[in-house]
C-alpha cells in the first residue's frame, strides 16, 4: 500500500554496487558533510564555550570587574529555584499544545491545498501568509487580538450590547493563547512540506482506492497518511524544538505574564541573564534547556521515529 515503505524495501534489498574509481559512500558523505559541520562547530564553539565558562563562574564588581570560579554551584542552585520548576511545567504545556495543534492544522491545510481548486496559487499563498510573519510580529498580532483593551472579542461583545472588555490574557488561558499563536505561525511550514510529500504519492493509488470504493476518510487514512509518516515525525521533532526555543513571541506578547503564568524556560533564562544580570545562573539554566530539547527529540524518536524511519 505505502509506496514509501515499498521503495525502501527495494532500496534495502538492492546491493549497492560501486563502480570502480569512485570513492566510497562514507568518503563522499564526509566530503560533503564535514565542511558544514566544521563551520557550524567553529561559529557555535565560542558562544558555547563562553556559556560554559559563565555557568561555572560568578561575577564580582568591587575592586574591578572579574569572575570567580564557583564550580557547579549554579547547576545545583537551579533545582531549589521554584521559578525554574514552574517554568519547566509551563514549557511542557506550551510545547505539547503547540505541537499537537500544529500537526493537526498542518494536515488540514495541506489536505485543502492538495485539492484541485480554482486559483490554487492564490489560495496557497494566502494560507502560507502566517509563516511570512515573523514570530515577534505574530506576538504583536495575537497580543492585539486577544487583549480586552484592543481585542476582537471586546468589539464583538460591545456590538451585541456588552459593556465590558473580554480579555483572554488571563492566567488561565494565556498559555493556550500562546500555543494557538505558535501553531498559527508554524502550521503553514508543516503544511507545505506535507503538500510537497503528498504530491509524490502516485495517482495510481488514488485510482485504486476509488475502485475499492474507499470513503474520503479511508482514502486519507490508508493512502495519504502512511507515506507522510516520516515527514510528520520529522516535523513533530522540529516543531518541538522550535516551541521549546520560542522566545521573542512570548516576550512581546505577554512578557512572561500575567505574573509568571507564561514564564517559559527561555523567558526565565532571559530574565536571569538580561534582567538579574546573572549570566552564570542563566547559562546553567540554558544548559538544562538544551538537555531537555535533546531529550524531547530523542523521546519522539524512540516512540515514533524508530518505527517510521526503518
Amino acid at each position, binding site marked *: 500500500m505505502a509506496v514509501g515503505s515499498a521503495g525502501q524495501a527495494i532500496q534495502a534489498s538492492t546491493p549497492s554496487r560501486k563502480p570502480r574509481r569512485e570513492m566510497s559512500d562514507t568518503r563522499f558523505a564526509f566530503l560533503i558533510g564535514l565542511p558544514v559541520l566544521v563551520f557550524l562547530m567553529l561559529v557555535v564553539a565560542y558562544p558555547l564555550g563562553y556559556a560554559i565558562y559563565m555557568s561555572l563562574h560568578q561575577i564580582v564588581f568591587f575592586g574591578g570587574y572579574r569572575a570567580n570560579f564557583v564550580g557547579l554551584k549554579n547547576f545545583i542552585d537551579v533545582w531549589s529555584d521554584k521559578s525554574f520548576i514552574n517554568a519547566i511545567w509551563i514549557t511542557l504545556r506550551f510545547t505539547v499544545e503547540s505541537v499537537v495543534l500544529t500537526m493537526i492544522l498542518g494536515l488540514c491545510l495541506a489536505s485543502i491545498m492538495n485539492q484541485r*481548486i480554482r486559483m490554487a496559487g492564490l489560495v*496557497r499563498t494566502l494560507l502560507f501568509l502566517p*509563516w511570512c510573519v515573523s514570530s515577534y510580529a505574530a506576538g504583536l498580532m495575537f497580543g492585539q*487580538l486577544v487583549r480586552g483593551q484592543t481585542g476582537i472579542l471586546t468589539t464583538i461583545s460591545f456590538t451585541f450590547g456588552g459593556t465590558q472588555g473580554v480579555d483572554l490574557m488571563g492566567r488561565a488561558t494565556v498559555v493556550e493563547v500562546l500555543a494557538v499563536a505558535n501553531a498559527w505561525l508554524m502550521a503553514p511550514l508543516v503544511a507545505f512540506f506535507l503538500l*510537497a510529500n503528498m504530491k509524490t504519492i502516485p495517482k495510481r493509488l488514488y485510482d485504486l482506492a476509488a475502485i475499492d470504493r474507499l470513503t474520503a476518510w479511508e482514502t486519507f487514512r490508508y493512502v495519504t497518511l502512511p507515506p507522510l509518516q516520516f515527514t510528520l515525525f520529522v516535523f513533530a521533532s522540529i516543531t518541538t524544538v522550535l516551541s521549546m526555543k520560542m*522566545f521573542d513571541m512570548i516576550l512581546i506578547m505577554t512578557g512572561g505574564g500575567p505574573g509568571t503564568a507564561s514564564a517559559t524556560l527561555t523567558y526565565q533564562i532571559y530574565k536571569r*541573564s538580561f534582567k538579574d544580570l546573572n549570566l552564570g545562573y542563566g547559562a546553567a539554566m540554558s544548559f538544562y534547556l538544551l538537555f531537555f530539547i535533546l531529550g524531547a527529540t530523542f523521546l519522539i524518536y524512540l516512540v515514533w521515529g524508530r518505527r517510521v524511519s526503518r
Partner: protein
Amino acid sequence: MAKRSIFLYLAIAVAIVWSIFPIYWFCRMAFLTPNEIRLFPQPFMPQVFEFGTFYNIFGYDYEYAAGYVSGASGQSNQIIRGVLNGLFISSIVTVITLLIVVPLAYVFARMEFRHKQKLLFAVLLAVALPPVSTLIPFYSMYVQLGLNGTRFGLIVVTLTITVPFVAWMLIGYFRNLPPIERLARIDGYSRTSCLLTLILPLAKSGIAVAAVIAFLFSWNEYTYALVLVNGTSANTLPTAISGFLGQYPEPGNLAASVIVTIIPPALFAYFLQRHVTEMSLVDPVR
C-alpha cells in the same frame, strides 16, 4: 459532487479566515487614525483607506483628506535601510544555505555510512541551541572581532540557524523520494551526476519550499539582529520596526511596517509555490 464542493469551499474559506484574520486585525491599524487606535472598543474597520502611514515610514509627510498632516517618521531611514539590507542578506543566506544543504541532506537521507548517527546528532545539537542563551556570548565575541553591525556578521549568524534547520527538513523529504538513483547507478551514473540530473529535478518541490523557508528565517530573524546590528548601517527590517515599540509608540506606523515586512516573503512564496507540483515522472516503482 455538488455537496462535496460546497464543503470544500467552506473549508477553504475557514482556512483563509484563520490565516488572514490575525494579520488583518493588527494591520488595520495602519489605516486607522491615531485617534481611532485609542478607541475602546476598537472599530472593526477603518472609516477611510488612506495610505498616510506608508508615506510616513518611508520619510514623507502626508496630508489626510480630513485636513491634518501626519509627519514623516523618525525611523524612516532605518526602515528603508532595513528593507534593502534584509533583501540583500536574505538572498545571500538563501543561496548559500541551499548550496550547502541540498547535497548534505541528500547524503544523509540516501546513503549509509559510518558515524552517520553521530553527525546527525551534531546537526541536531546546532538546531537545539536556544538563541537566548548564545546571544550574550555571540555579542561579546562580535564586539571583540569587530563584526558588530556588519552584514557579514549577520549572514554568518543566520547561516548557523538556517543550515541545520533546512538540512533537517530536507533529509526527511529526500528519504521519501522514490529510490530512483539506485537504478540509475546500476546504469553507470556517477554519484554527482545522479544528484544533479535525477534527484534535483525530482526534488524540485522540496527544494522550492526549502528556499522559501531559508529566506523567511533570514528575513524574519529578530533576536540576533536586534542585538548584533540594530541601529547600525547593517540593520534589518524587523529590528528597525522595534523602534516603534518603545516609549514612543506609533501603532499606525508599526502596523504599516509590519505590512511591509510581509510583502517580500509573500511574493517570494507566491512565485515559488508553483514549483510545488505533481511529480512529473511516471511512478518508478513498478
